[in-house]
């Protein structure tokens, strides 16, 4: 990072060291993206194994115990370790560019957040090789998981504790970045929608992750250190876990879906070639969804027996969320309406997203009706609903945005034909898998079962569902092939690849230099780059300062070492209930490493380094040839 000669080829060791120590938001974005993709593939593979098992009745492809482990790890990995980091990858990449910042507010913490997330995820996955994965579902309700034998649940608790800390750090970082680091002229009401949703998601993470931390910590001390929070024989109360989990769990759903909303709000105006319809109502709806998301968690617990008053309150609050969500859907439709539409790959994802997500939302409102929920609870109808929301919303959003932002992220473009093929395979597979599960649910098939008897009328539907899952897998393989092919393709070295970019990130020429904008841009309105283009500005942007020295943060290896310290401490804690003598020393060692790194960090002044004007001009010339970024 400290070297300016980024045009030169570097050896493998140097590149690796660069990535291990980097605090650059773009590189961390890449790391989030590829780590997320890795875990997405793992969790997707687990899903395929489950669907193969359920393809025919009385199947014995996997055992009941392994099936429980697969379904737990599929849910946990997809939500915490695949969807979240993939979205964080886009946030890291795009948000600083969209607000015209050089980096995030706390580059060091950004790196720490990534490494905590990654090592927590690795820790969780080690469970497969060390005596069995967690098997109590992704919710891991205390009444079940307290009595799960082996170390599976301990891996779940510790792994999520570490990666959750990383997510919380990153969330706070995004909030501060968006509050303090906007370019001059970028008021809150001129921020692009993706930045807005990132801000709200950051706020949701800030408020929602602490209850998860607390719930997991209670579980940790209950299982490993003899506490009694959830043990009713000792006066504990297992409902506390459910409440804490869902106080976190429901906002988590919005943590995932809001960035996808933001991504689509970026994609649709570009390809409809029209200003986003109802920008202020979009912002308002985002805030409202974020706030209401905190007031509805008990709708996951209707069947717990909270009583009619509580159920009624939470039912009404849940239905209320449909209103701002509906506002968003109508705004997207009205943006497309009357636009001069270009159906590119990102746009086809957006067009596929709207009806799919609406279907998921409508079944959600059905479940908000508490009496009906008693019927639907724990059936495949629920499985169909949340996959419609998560796959139809979040995953389509991520795939669409991958195609959309690939030119900025890699300076390459994904093949369009292969992109359409990916979309249609995945989209058809998705509907084939999950649409039919609504009916399986209504016919009474319970979720989380490892097999079923034949001749209940479920055979054909399950078979169709499994075929759809295989198609989805094929779609993902097409996408990965597309990515690999694109690496071989010619670099673009262009700005505004799609030709109709509106927000600030499209004003940058790719590859994006490590300091982003050579001069901080001046924001003259909503869709600043479109305004400049409209007024015939050849420079790309109007700038708020002359070319001058740029101050950048130093890279550091400490975040990785700190995360490794937590990783070591987690092992000590894991084996504590076995009564081994080394458990407490290992915990102390691990936490000691982390604390020592923190002390080193605060005792060594980190003043960053300065890139001089001459170095900037040289960098620009090495990247784009004579004349630099014009």
């Amino acid at each position, binding site marked *: 990072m400290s070297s300016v000669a980024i045009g030169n080829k570097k050896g493998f060791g140097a590149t690796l060291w660069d990535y291990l120590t980097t605090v650059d938001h773009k590189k961390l974005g890449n790391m989030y993206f590829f780590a997320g993709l890795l875990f997405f593939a793992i969790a997707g593979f687990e899903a395929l194994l489950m669907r193969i098992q359920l393809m025919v009745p009385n199947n014995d492809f996997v055992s009941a115990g392994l099936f429980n482990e697969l379904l737990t790890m599929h849910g946990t990995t997809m939500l915490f370790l695949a969807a979240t980091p993939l979205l964080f990858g886009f946030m890291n990449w795009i948000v600083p560019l969209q607000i015209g910042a050089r980096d995030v*507010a*706390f580059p060091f913490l950004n790196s720490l957040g990534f490494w905590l997330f990654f090592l927590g995820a690795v820790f969780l996955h080690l469970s497969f090789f060390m005596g069995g994965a967690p098997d109590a579902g992704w919710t891991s309700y205390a009444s079940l998981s307290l009595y799960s034998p082996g170390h599976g649940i301990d891996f779940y608790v510790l792994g999520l504790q570490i990666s959750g800390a990383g997510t*919380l750090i990153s969330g*706070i*970082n995004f*909030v*501060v970045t968006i*509050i*303090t*680091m906007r370019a001059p002229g970028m008021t809150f009401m001129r921020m692009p929608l993706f930045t807005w949703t990132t801000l709200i998601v950051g706020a949701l993470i*800030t*408020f*929602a*992750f*602490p*209850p998860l*931390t*607390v*719930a997991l*910590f*209670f579980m940790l*001390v*209950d299982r490993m*250190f*003899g*506490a*009694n*929070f959830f*043990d009713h*024989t*000792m*006066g*504990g*109360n297992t409902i*506390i876990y459910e409440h*804490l989990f869902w*106080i976190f769990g429901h906002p988590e759903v919005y943590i995932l879906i809001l960035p996808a909303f933001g991504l689509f709000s970026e994609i649709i105006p570009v390809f409809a070639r029209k200003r986003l319809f109802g920008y202020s109502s979009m912002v308002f709806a985002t805030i409202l969804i974020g706030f209401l998301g905190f007031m509805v968690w008990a709708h996951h617990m209707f069947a717990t027996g909270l009583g009619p008053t509580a159920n009624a309150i939470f039912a009404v609050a849940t239905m209320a969320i449909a209103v701002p969500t509906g506002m968003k859907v109508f705004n997207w439709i009205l943006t497309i309406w009357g636009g001069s539409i270009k159906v590119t790959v990102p746009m086809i994802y957006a067009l596929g997203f709207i009806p799919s997500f609406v279907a998921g939302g409508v079944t959600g409102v059905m479940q908000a009706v508490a009496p009906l929920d008693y019927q639907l609870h724990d059936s495949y109808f629920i499985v169909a609903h949340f996959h419609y929301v998560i796959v139809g919303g979040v995953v389509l959003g991520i795939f669409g945005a991958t195609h959309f932002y690939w030119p900025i992220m890699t300076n390459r473009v994904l093949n369009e034909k292969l992109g359409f093929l990916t979309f249609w395979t995945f989209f058809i597979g998705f509907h084939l898998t999950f649409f039919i599960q609504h009916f399986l649910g209504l016919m009474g098939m319970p979720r989380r079962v490892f097999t079923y008897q034949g001749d209940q009328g479920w055979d054909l539907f399950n078979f169709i569902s499994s075929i759809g899952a295989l198609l989805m897998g094929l779609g993902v393989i097409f996408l990965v092939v597309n990515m690999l092919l694109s690496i071989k393709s010619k670099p673009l070295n262009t700005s505004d690849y799609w030709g109709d970019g509106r927000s600030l990130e499209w004003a940058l020429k790719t590859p994006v230099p490590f300091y982003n904008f050579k001069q901080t841009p001046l924001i003259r309105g909503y869709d600043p780059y479109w305004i400049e283009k409209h007024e015939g500005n050849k420079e790309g942007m109007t700038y708020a300062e002359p070319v001058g020295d740029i*101050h950048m943060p130093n890279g550091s290896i400490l975040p990785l070492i700190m995360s490794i310290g937590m990783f070591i401490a987690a092992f000590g804690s894991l084996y504590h209930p076995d009564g081994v003598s080394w458990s407490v020393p290992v915990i102390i060692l691990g936490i000691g490493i982390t*604390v020592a790194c923190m*002390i080193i960090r*605060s*005792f060594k*002044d980190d*003043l*960053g380094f300065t890139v001089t004007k001459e170095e900037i001009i040289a960098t620009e010339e090495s990247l784009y040839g004579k004349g630099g970024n014009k």
Partner: protein
Amino acid sequence: MDINTKYTPKTWPDHAEQVTLEGKNKFVGIWIFICSDIVLFASVFATYLALKDSGPSGMDITAKELFGLELAFVMTMLLLTSSLTSVYAMYHMKNFNSKGVLIWMGITVLLGLGFLGLEIYEFYEYTVHEGFGFTHSAFSSAFYLLVGTHGLHVIIGLIWITGLIIRNAKRGLNLYNAPKFFAASIYWHFIDVVWVFIFTVVYLMGVLG
């Protein structure tokens, strides 16, 4: 950068902790962190209230019998006073008096240590003499975890402030360390805010039964 710029009381800017972008980031950052801590403490607190006095059937220890007010009162006074002393430190920072900052921050640390000592003594008394250990009941787990989480925050604050004092003992104030002192003082006040609720809800209302 700013660290090499020497200031005098006359050139020291108003609100020195927020003139640099790093300072602003630290100020906003510590606040957003506190917001998330609010919800963290709310969760632990609510659990304590839910599990208060509940244990295995036949448990004879209740909050009413267990808690005494004398110790809680002294601890409250120590922590409240430490809040004031850190305000004094910030007052001296405004006047560019680095010695004043260090001395008052040092007093804050001493008061915090006193608080921590009393808390450890209290835990020791309950565990050893009352037989009210961490694994005794749901009530004991919730109590130790709530007060212990606060204690952990105190420990982190003490390490933080001590580190700041040692690191900046010789080099005076500048725009690089002023935001650090300021963030630490805000964090310290937040610890006091939490304690206000703990002494009211756990101790005072515990004694009422």
